[in-house]
């Protein structure tokens, strides 16, 4: 009687240890290769319009931002969407945070021209007053870890706060050679190292949580996406058909009632 109990106990422990190991591996993981999907151009306004399926064609990834990669348990969970159209790369970051504690929060990404992580470009959205929704999109180049503002800001960015949910949206052009060499030139079939950064005070590069992500740009394999069929039209067709059957049934009940009345009289 004892043996099967012991076996079950050992088996359960082995399963639990295996499951814990998987979780640990996932938590320690700091670099992911992501390939942007091709989708319809989103509006960079800090709002993900779910009614119009904005960002619907994008890959959604759940990641953590870590202050210290050796202590992964302090990670900040984020949702990351990556997408591109014919001319631009789009990135959206969304997470839940208490806005009162982070009035001067910034979120952005550092870009390296290679896979090694020698960052030379930075795109940030810096809040000056999150409660009032005041922010600025900033384009820096990095020289010996010093952040210097670009002469010409490239790309666009916007952020929006909805309750406790913060959405950051970025758009940056692909295949444009920046002659001033202050921006990373995104070329096709190359892999770039992106490091997502997060901070609470407008000082760079100090005090940032980060997570390294490799993003591979797939351009120019571009096929224009099919125009999305309006959600309302599909709803009207599907529920309209059911509604019509329902009306037909109600009508047949009414007819039957009249018939019964006639028979009784």
């Amino acid at each position, binding site marked *: 009687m004892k043996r099967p109990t012991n076996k079950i106990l050992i088996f359960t422990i082995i399963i639990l240890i295996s499951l814990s190991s998987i979780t640990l591996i996932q938590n320690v993981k700091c670099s992911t290769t992501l390939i942007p999907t091709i989708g319809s151009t989103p509006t960079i306004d800090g709002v993900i319009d*779910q009614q119009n399926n904005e960002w619907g064609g994008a890959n959604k990834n*759940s990641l953590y931002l870590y202050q210290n990669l050796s202590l992964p348990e302090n990670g900040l969970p984020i*949702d990351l969407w990556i997408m591109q159209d014919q001319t631009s790369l789009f990135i959206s970051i*969304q997470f839940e945070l208490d806005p009162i504690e982070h009035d001067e929060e910034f979120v952005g990404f550092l870009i390296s021209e290679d896979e090694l992580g020698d960052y030379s470009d930075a795109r940030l959205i810096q809040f000056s007053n999150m409660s009032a929704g005041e922010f600025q999109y900033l384009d820096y180049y990095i020289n010996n870890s010093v952040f210097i503002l670009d002469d010409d800001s490239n790309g666009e960015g916007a952020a929006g706060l909805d309750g406790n949910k913060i959405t950051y949206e970025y758009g940056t052009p692909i295949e444009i050679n920046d002659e001033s060499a202050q921006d990373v030139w995104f070329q096709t079939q190359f892999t770039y190292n992106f490091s997502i950064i997060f901070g609470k005070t407008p000082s760079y590069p100090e005090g940032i949580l980060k997570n390294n992500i490799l993003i591979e740009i797939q351009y120019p394999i571009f096929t224009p996406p099919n125009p999305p069929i309006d*959600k309302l039209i599909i*709803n009207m067709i*599907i*529920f309209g*058909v*059911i*509604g019509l*059957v*329902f009306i037909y*049934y*109600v009508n*047949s*009940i009414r007819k*039957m*009632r009249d018939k*019964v009345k006639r028979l*009784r009289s």
Partner: protein
Amino acid sequence: MSKIKKENHLKKNQVNDDKFAFKSVIRSTVLGGIFFIVSILFNGEILEIFDTSILLWNFIDSIIKVVFIMLFFIFMIISMGNYKELTGKPLNFKDIILLSVLSLIQAFRNPIVFIFTLAGLLILLAYLYLLQDN
């Protein structure tokens, strides 16, 4: 009791039964209609129950959607069963399939809701079949 009195009594009982069945048809149809409208709002994603990425809330959201479709199906099958009884015909397989399809396509937007609804309908139909058998 005389033969005429007995016939009148039986006739009166029959009329009462019909009235009850008819009232049941109306009530079930009205309830089915209400649940259909609620199902349009939630399953058509006109109203969002929980706008979050938390798995537990998403699961509850799906369950609520499934429940409204199932309630639509249950009340409509009661209504149709009574309606058929009044017309003197049994509820046939075609009617059940049609109602199941109409219930199932309400979940077309969400594959999880679709799978749960399909499972729920199969369980319910199996239960009704076994109940009929007994």
